[in-house]
């Protein structure tokens, strides 16, 4: 009852000097908007990645060189090593064979990097990735083609390639450059198929298959003069149930192969998910933290204005005290006022972030998602800012001497 009266009072006070209120709120608005936008981008990316990983199926196991995760004795992931991706080394055919022969594994497919820049006529595409893989790759990751076909067992020694959509667009400048030829390290390869658009996964650049050129594994060995640099091996378990034991077997086999050293990472799909969302959470938290600094600055602005307001309304405070307001009631009045200022700022910030997110959706690949918890938390944060930065002015107001306040001009 008293609270609703205080809120009405606060609103009328803030309305009595609209411009000042808006300007004060600006800091809170921008602060809340930037926090909400960063968190919702993070949330959106996570959602895209989750969707993509789920599409691959629960029986898919990914093996990569380097230690990306820390595990406890039971094999549960306890930490993620963000820097592992920088120089992870690579596998050779030994590991591939070992994985293929592991019990519970049905089929495997390696990705062998070919270091070379593809060229079409006089155009090159330096940001593309050239890999060699087996004919079961497309089926393994469940990806369909827009044009042509993936290479089969028959053309495993043929100089053919299947390319991602962006390669078709950037290198050839057309949708379906089937039959056209590219040059890699002096070898000529004919385009046999073009993949459908892979769901884009921002922040996970190593997996950007849209900019990748795939050739048969044997051909890739030939092109890179016999050198093998496998940066990822996909293994498919017989079914979802055997995925766990298959992954465990791969781990123990490879550890044995590497002389007891676990310098590689075996991830089931659900773990892959955990790793990615862990990384994203860290990143989002960091950026949101930076954005929150503007909230702090906004809070200081609120405190400043509240101090001005308290001194402007000294006489009012005197009158209220004379008619019987207790110190606590005065304190509450001003605390509610600063909180209302911040919460209204927070709500406007959310509206601003909805607009910003819409623009981001239109102009970028990102799909930011605003969830109810994000809204509740950001309004909560705004409220906390209002209370924290409103306390000092409110205490000053509450402690004012009634006589001096009544005399104040």
């Amino acid at each position, binding site marked *: 009852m008293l609270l609703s009266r205080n809120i009405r009072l606060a609103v009328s006070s803030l309305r009595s000097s609209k411009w000042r209120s808006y300007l004060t709120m600006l800091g809170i608005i921008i602060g809340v908007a930037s926090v909400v936008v960063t968190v919702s981008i993070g949330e959106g990316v996570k959602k895209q990645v989750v969707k993509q990983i789920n599409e691959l199926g629960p029986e898919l196991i990914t093996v990569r060189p380097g230690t990306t995760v820390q595990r406890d004795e039971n094999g549960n992931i306890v930490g993620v090593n963000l820097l592992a991706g920088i120089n992870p080394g690579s596998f050779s055919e030994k590991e591939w064979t070992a994985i293929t022969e592991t019990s519970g594994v049905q089929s495997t497919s390696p990705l062998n990097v070919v270091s070379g820049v593809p060229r079409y006529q006089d155009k090159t595409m330096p940001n593309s990735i050239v890999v060699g893989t087996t004919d079961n790759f497309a089926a393994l990751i469940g990806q369909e083609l827009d044009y042509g076909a993936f290479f089969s067992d028959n053309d495993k020694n043929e100089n053919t390639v299947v390319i991602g959509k962006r390669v078709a667009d950037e290198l050839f400048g057309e949708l379906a450059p089937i039959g056209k030829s590219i040059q890699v390290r002096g070898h000529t390869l004919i385009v046999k198929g073009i993949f459908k658009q892979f769901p884009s996964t921002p922040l996970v650049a190593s997996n950007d298959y849209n900019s990748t050129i795939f050739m048969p594994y044997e051909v890739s060995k030939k092109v890179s003069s016999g050198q093998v640099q496998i940066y990822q091996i996909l293994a498919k378990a017989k079914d979802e149930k055997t995925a766990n034991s298959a992954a465990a077997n791969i781990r123990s086999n490879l550890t044995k192969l590497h002389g007891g050293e676990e310098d590689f990472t075996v991830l089931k799909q659900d773990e892959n998910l955990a790793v990615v969302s862990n990384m994203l959470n860290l990143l989002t938290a960091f950026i949101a933290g930076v954005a929150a600094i503007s909230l702090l600055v906004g809070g200081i602005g609120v405190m400043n204005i509240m101090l001005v307001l308290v001194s402007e309304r000294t006489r009012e405070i*005197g009158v209220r005290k*004379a*008619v019987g*307001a207790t110190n*606590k009631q005065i304190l509450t009045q001003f605390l509610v006022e600063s909180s209302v200022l911040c919460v209204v700022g927070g709500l406007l910030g959310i509206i601003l972030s909805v607009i910003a997110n819409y623009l981001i959706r239109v102009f970028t690949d990102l799909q930011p998602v605003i969830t109810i918890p994000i809204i509740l938390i950001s309004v909560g944060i705004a409220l906390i800012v209002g209370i924290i930065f409103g306390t000092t002015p409110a205490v000053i107001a509450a402690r004012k001497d009634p006589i001096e306040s009544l005399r104040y001009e």
Partner: protein
Amino acid sequence: MPVIELKDVSKLYGFGDATTVALDEVNFSVEKGEFVAIMGPSGSGKSTLLNIIGLLDKPTHGTYDLGGRRVERMRANRRSKIRRDTIGFIFQSFNLLPRLNVLENVALPLAYKGKTQTKRLKQAGAILEEVGLADREYFMPKQLSGGQTQRVAIARALVNNPKIIIADEPTGNLDSASSLVIMELLDKIHRDGNTILMVTHNPELTKYASRVVFMHDGSIVADEMSKFGEIPGFIKRRMYSVKIKTQEDKLKGVSAVMKAIPDKNTKNDDSSNKKQKKPIKKYKRKNKAKK
């Protein structure tokens, strides 16, 4: 039992050589239903006395019983609640809150009592009717004349059914016609059984009081019952010992002249009064303070 009972109440400001004695061991009690007018030259301690009685200020020394309760050492919180429940204030400068309308201003003391909005506004409306401003409920303070504003302030002071009403120069900012309206209103409130303490510089207004007190240098130097419609003799003597020189002075009543009374005059009058000891006592006190 008196509503208000002050015993040896002093109020000092400052330290050491800069000490001001605003109230000097004042003994003062007020019975229920009295209308006390307090007069005295500027700086004689009238406002200080009212502030202490109204629990806005604490005495430096002495005791204060309000309605049988010892209040002079109470904490701010309890003082606020006593103000809310038992005291109504009327100020010289009206002190309505500019952002609230007339009705909300009158209802303000009730808000701190935790009454519901509808009850508050109903009660405030009833009081407004009593002061003759029922048709101004939704006006903002700045849309009212001085006299109307003060009537709203009086309604606010009354809305809580206070034990005492404290008015420090309630007509100080008003012309004589509005002053008259306000005094008639206070008189009506007095006749309804309320206790009123009023400071005024206008001797004419003491006509309405049932008791007149004169202060000088922090002491009460005269204190007499007076009949309605009459100015007490000691006030008259002070009035006519000063000549009214200009037309303007005449219009203002004697208030401007009273303020200009030199100390000598009042002191001469003091000697004719019963309470002769006071000035000597004060002299001692000032010496004490200097030590």
